[in-house]
Structures are given as C-alpha cells and as structure tokens.
C-alpha cells in the first residue's frame, strides 16, 4: 500500500514489511511513522523480534530517534548516521539470524567504519534465509558491486536451531564510497552442486541420510555433486536439536542458487524424515534453477537496492519471476528514493525450441534496468 506523506514523514500502516521500511529509511535519511501495528490482534503492537531489529539499527547508527506509543501499535523512526564498526548483538529467537543479517548486508557498504558484527541467535529458521544461504548466494552478489574483496567475510561459529538457538556468526563487511554499476544479463549453466548438511543434537546418521537422498536426486542431472556434513558437537551444536540442509548450484557465470530445508521444530508434534527432507530440498533447488535468472530469488531485492544506490550509470540485471517481496521492495524504493526501474519481460528467443509447449512452461525472465541515484557514502574519503 502506498505511503501517505505528511510533513516529509512517510506514514505506513501495519507491521508488514517492517524491515524494508526501516532499512530504506535508514539509508535515505527520511523519517517514517508506522501506525496500526497489529492493532486489531489479540496481541497488539510490535513483536519482540521487531523491537530487537530497532535495537540493532540503534547500535549501528548514531543519533537515531525512536518513539513508540504506549500500546506499541504505532512508532516513529528518525534515522541517524550509519556508523557500523564493532557490533555485538543477540538476536531474538523468534526469527532467524538471517532476518537481521540481511539488513546488515544491505547497510554494510555504506557505513562509516567497516562492519564487524557478532550475531547470536537462531541460525536456521523457516521464515528467514539461513546463514549458509547468505554466505553462499548473497556474498557473491555484493562482490559484484564492490569488486575488490577486502575483508568481506561471514563465519558460522556455532549453529543453533529454533526454538532456543544458541548459534553465533561473525560478519565483516568493507565500506565503499560508491557502488559499481552492474551489468548482469547472463547466468550460464549449472556446473556444480555443493551443499552442507548439519545435524545438531541428533544422531549423526540423520545427516548422512539427508545427504544420500539429496544426492540421489541431484545426480540425475549432474555428476558433480558434493555435499558436506557438518556434525556439530558440544556447545557448537546450539541449544535445540534439529537438522537441515542447504544446497548450492553454481553456474559457469558465477551465479549461485541456493535452496534449503530444515527439520520441524522439536516439540511441534511433527516428525521429519531425513530422506524426505533431502529430496524436498533438492526439488526446491531444481525449481530455483528452473526459474533461473542471474540471482537467487530470495536476493532479488538486494540486487535492486544496490543497483538503485549505485553510481549515476545504467545498471541492468536479468532475474527470474519477481517475488512478491521484491515487488513490494521496488515500490518502497520508489517511495523513499524516487527510483523507478524499467522492467521488461524477456521473450524467449531460443531458435531451437520452436515448440509452443516449451515456451509456455519456461518461467518468465525479467530484465530490470535502472539508473543509479549516485548515492555516496560521505563518511568514506577518497584516497
């Protein structure tokens, strides 16, 4: 829903897309007000994980102002200056670390000091990208924008499954004065499949059974499949039992698709068979490969953000079908920065696939083009 503007403050309704709005507000320096946050729910107001996100933003900025109403159903946020630097944060266990990590990733290049963040919490969550996925699929995207990798790093120190978590990661991100424009229209062919299976506080055979099943599916398409197992022991295994898998498909043009699956939470009353889990994950990965595009579908919005904030130059990127989340993000980008993307559906120009049937079933590709707004990190001096 479009925002209403009042005294240069963007006013939104509802708790949906809370993170997008705070993130863009911080980058653009525009104040926002969010009203009617779960106002008609039994449990009204902001949830713990959202307050936790505000805390994190408060830690990496200087001079942010947050005003919450007494009931917590409306808030006002006036962003400060992005500082970055050393941050240690214990994330809410209601959401995964990915929820917070994505924000840090988006803000990282624009901080004053290189970001060095230690995040604690749940490393794998159903609603959020896992730390493995960020490491495998998102960091290569950022590399395309900053070109030189001086200290971009994500280390999984400990894993932690929901509900109790207990995982820990270290994320380091260099700063840039401005981002490079991006031309990324080819993604090539999948050349190898890699993966990690982790088993926390469960029998190690679980991991092997997952590997077996996932590998069985992927080997039908490609011989180069290698799946690691990460058997965590003692304190490294977090506080709750669980197991899961993330598979990465790498193409010969350096595009990474990543799919994940994890076991149901302990105590939820369901049981997850490792074989089914492995198979489900492999099928999700195949689906991702079918949708294709130069970036993984979960990170379309990150690409859009960095393209929009790039130098005053044309960036273009071809992605698969836009996710609902990306569409919302593009709308927000327009509201906060006034950037509008040119979106074109590409028609298949494969000469050899002349059958009409083939055309109907291939997923649509969308070419996103925009001119960067020339966002400059004023804290970073040119040498």
């Amino acid at each position, binding site marked *: 829903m479009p925002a209403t503007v009042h005294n240069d403050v963007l006013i939104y309704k509802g708790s949906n897309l*809370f993170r997008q709005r705070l993130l863009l507000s911080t980058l653009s320096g525009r104040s926002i007000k969010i009203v*009617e946050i779960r106002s008609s729910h039994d449990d009204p107001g902001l949830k713990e994980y959202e307050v936790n996100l505000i805390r994190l933003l408060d830690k990496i900025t200087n001079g942010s102002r947050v005003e919450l109403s007494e009931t917590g159903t409306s808030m006002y946020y006036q962003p400060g200056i992005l500082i970055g630097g050393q941050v240690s944060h214990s994330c809410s266990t209601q959401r995964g670390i990915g929820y917070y990590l994505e924000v840090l990733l988006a803000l990282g290049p624009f901080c004053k000091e290189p970001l060095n963040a230690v995040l604690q919490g749940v490393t794998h969550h159903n609603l959020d*990208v896992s730390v493995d996925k960020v490491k495998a699929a998102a960091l290569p995207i950022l590399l395309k924008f900053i070109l030189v990798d001086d200290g971009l790093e994500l280390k999984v120190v400990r894993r932690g499954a929901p509900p109790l978590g207990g995982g820990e990661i270290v994320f380091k991100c260099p700063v840039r004065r401005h981002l490079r424009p991006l031309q990324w229209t080819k993604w090539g062919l999948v050349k190898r499949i890699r993966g990690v299976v982790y088993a926390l506080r469960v029998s190690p055979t679980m991991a092997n059974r997952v590997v077996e099943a996932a590998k069985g599916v992927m080997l039908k398409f490609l011989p180069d499949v290698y799946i690691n197992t990460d058997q965590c022991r003692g304190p490294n295994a977090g506080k709750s039992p669980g197991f899961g898998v993330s598979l990465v498909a790498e193409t010969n043009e350096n595009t990474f698709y990543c799919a994940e699956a994890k076991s149901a939470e302990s105590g939820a009353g369901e049981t997850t068979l490792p074989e089914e889990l492995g198979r489900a994950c492999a099928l999700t990965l195949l689906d991702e490969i*079918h949708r294709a595009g130069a970036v993984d*579908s*979960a990170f379309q919005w990150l690409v859009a953000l960095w393209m929009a904030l790039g130098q005053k130059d044309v960036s273009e990127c071809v992605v698969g079908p836009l*996710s609902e989340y990306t569409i919302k993000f593009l709308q927000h980008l*327009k509201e906060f920065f006034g950037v509008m993307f040119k979106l074109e559906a590409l028609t298949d120009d494969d000469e050899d696939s002349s059958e009409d049937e083939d055309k109907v079933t291939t997923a*649509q590709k969308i070419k996103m083009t925009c001119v960067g707004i020339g966002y400059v990190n004023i804290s970073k001096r040119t040498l």
Partner: protein
Amino acid sequence: MAYFERQRTSRNIMKLVYGEFEIGNKTKEPEESEGQSDEEEIGGLFKKVTSTQKKKHKEKEQLDLDECSFFYSLDKPKLRDWLNEANKQLIANSFVTGKRSA
C-alpha cells in the same frame, strides 16, 4: 503457481509493480465517498460486495503479515515433480551436461 500465471498473463510488469502509483507520489489518500451508489442490496437482506470493498479487505489481510523474503513466502509451494521425465526435459538444458547451444 497461481503467481506464475498472474505474472505471465499481465502484459505489463511495470503496471503490476508500479500500478498502485500514479505518476508522482500521492500526498493524500483519495477521499472516500461513503454510501456509494454501487452498494446494491439483494432482496433487502444481503449486500453485494463491491470491488472496492474486496480490495480493502485484501489490503487489510496483508497489513500485518509476517515478513519473509522467500519466493514462496508463507505458503508451502506446490513444486513440480522434477524427476518426472517430461519436467526433467524442461531444466535439463540449464545444466552443463545438457544440450549444447551453438
């Protein structure tokens, strides 16, 4: 999958994304005129749901959804069985082992 359909059928992606925005930012919500003439009563008992009401209802449902950046965000995806021979052909050429393009 319904989502695929929608994106495919909508001719113009620009409109799908930016459709809610007219050119330039809206500064005020459009005035709502209560009791419009399209509020028909059927048999004096039921009221017909107008499209604006439907849209409002949909917006309300979306208001407090949990935020999730995945493609199939909150609903479980109905994936195709990619191991089926016919489906397999669709993606076989996305791999280096597939048919070589000239």
